[in-house]
């Protein structure tokens, strides 16, 4: 992941790598976000042209999915599960306390840019709820102490 200004060659390379696929748009958007940590505005026109779709259609797709971001996230993304199984184990209170501690609302990024907190609806860790994910690393039976450790690790 990098947060430097996207350059055209990199954007074109990402598109070229996936353009041959059947239904290439989601793979392109995922690769774009993996490269730039968001979908840069500068990528819209080249993607639309490469796939022969309008920029409005492209915007429609990007904005439909929760995963795609128009701006880079914090250095770490913390996802807290809000779904029913986690609620049954106090997930709502845990999420509220975490957001309050950071002074954030959902999707917010801590002032120091360390962590962005996102809601997620189910990580498939429903038998060890409540669950969270820091980056790609899953954590189960999250209590206050475990959450504090995660936040500390993220530098929040």
């Amino acid at each position, binding site marked *: 992941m990098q947060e430097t200004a996207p350059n055209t060659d990199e954007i074109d390379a990402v598109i070229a790598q996936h353009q041959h696929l059947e239904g290439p748009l989601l793979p392109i958007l995922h690769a774009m976000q993996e490269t730039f940590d968001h979908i840069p505005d500068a990528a819209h026109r080249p993607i639309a042209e490469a796939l022969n779709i309008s920029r409005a259609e492209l915007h429609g797709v990007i904005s439909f999915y929760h995963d795609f971001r128009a701006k880079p996230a914090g250095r770490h993304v913390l996802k807290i599960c809000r779904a029913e199984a986690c609620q049954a184990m106090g997930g709502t209170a845990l999420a509220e306390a975490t957001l309050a501690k950071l002074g954030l609302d959902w999707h917010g990024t801590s002032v120091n840019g360390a962590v962005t907190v996102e809601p997620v609806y189910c990580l498939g860790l*429903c038998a060890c709820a409540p669950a969270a994910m820091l980056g790609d690393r899953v954590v189960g039976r999250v209590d206050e102490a475990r959450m504090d450790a995660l936040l500390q690790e993220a530098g929040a």
Partner: protein
Amino acid sequence: MKIYVPMDSAAKALGADAVAGALIAEAKSRGIEIELIRNGTRGMIWLEPLVEVEIDGVRHGFGPASHDDAAAILSGDAACALGPVEDLDWMKKQTRLTFARVGVIDPLDLADYEAHGGLAGLRRAIGMDGAGIVEEVTNSGLRGRGGAGFPTGIKWKTVHDAEAPQKYIVCNADEGDSGTFADRMIMEGDPFTLIEGMAIAGLAVGATRGYVYLRSEYPDAIRVMRRAVEIARASGVLGADVLGSGRSYDMEIRVGAGAYVCGEETSLLNSLEGKRGVVRAKPPLPALEGFLGRPTVVNNVISLATVPVIFEKGAQHYADFGLGRSRGTVTLQIAGNVARGGLFETAFGISLGEVVNDLAGGTATGNPVKAVQVGGPLGAYIPVSNFDAPLGYEELDAKGGLLGHAGLVIFDDRADMLRMARFAMEFCAVESCGKCTPCRIGAVRGVETIDRIAEGDAAAIPLLTDLCETMTDGSLCALGGFTPLPVMSALTHFPNDFATQKEAAE
């Protein structure tokens, strides 16, 4: 010394990586030679991380293990010793067909997979023609395990009979329902069984290409599946000449992007094509006009992963399990506020009460059970008074419930059912694809109406009931169509939670 430490994400979420690291370090410091295998999970999540040590060919369990237990596990005197894993009650009571290898084998070792019955089904299918394969699936009585319960054989026959230059197999691995993790478990614990099932489906209907649409919330499953596809391709299980049959089938893993509604098959297809994940009106059926307008089999992970065992053991063997029109096994996922949560595969027909009280041991908190939500966010909240309900498609339907993907989320007596009903509407509002009005607008109005009830407005209750009827009858897909199920079941079975505020206000 052979030691198993699961790499399943539930085990990792509970510290399995640290346990594996500690075992390696401890063995090294003692100069003991160990072979550490990262297996899938056995499904006993309350015992995770569950370390297994093979002694005289028998696997002994230690769990839940922490990294501090490494020394004692290697010495064989750990306090968390459980004895032979296969002798544990939870294991003995199950009928493991789909999940026979999960937790047993190294998920990415194709030879290990074959040694445990893998590829036998595909080899048998290669000797049959398409119609014969479809008939075998039909005879097994297998129904879609994603929730709808549609007979798999009939779906396959439609695609088989369709004429087209290209057909597709699409696996719906967008397991978004809370309380469900069977798809994730099998993809992380026995990925080749899904690949084999999809290859058999390809041979059956004449599809040479397949896709697994896997949700982005499952990074571990994505890694395992991608690697498994590479291995299968390199070994000739996938490709232009499947196991030397002269027939072609290949597949790819595609990643979703966080939209719950893409678990609905038509919005999944739109998403796979690179469009907004908006639901398509049916007809046309995806079986006739699916991915890129071609005939497409869309099946859930568990449905496809069950196909190999049907071919390995025969359709009749599979159909001999079950109840009524629900044949074979159901992979129950027991979750939420539960003492012993995890995956339990058994013949259809077990009662809800037996699962919740006996197998799962009630709640984790020790408080009385208040309700169980069966079938995910679109499933009903079932009160204890209906615990005699047998778990089968029609049987649960008769009790006003929905088996769905067979996830059970247990709540204790502190659960506020009005709040849960409100959440169901809120979730529907957030996740609605926006195509049909009853879902897009209805869910928003539903949240508002439940808020009015919470504020003591009794007149809002009939309004909510009426709104739910409209959503049920008028929505295009299950999201808007079944959101009323949790809402109305909460209202019907737990009226006190909807009345307290009102009484206080009066």
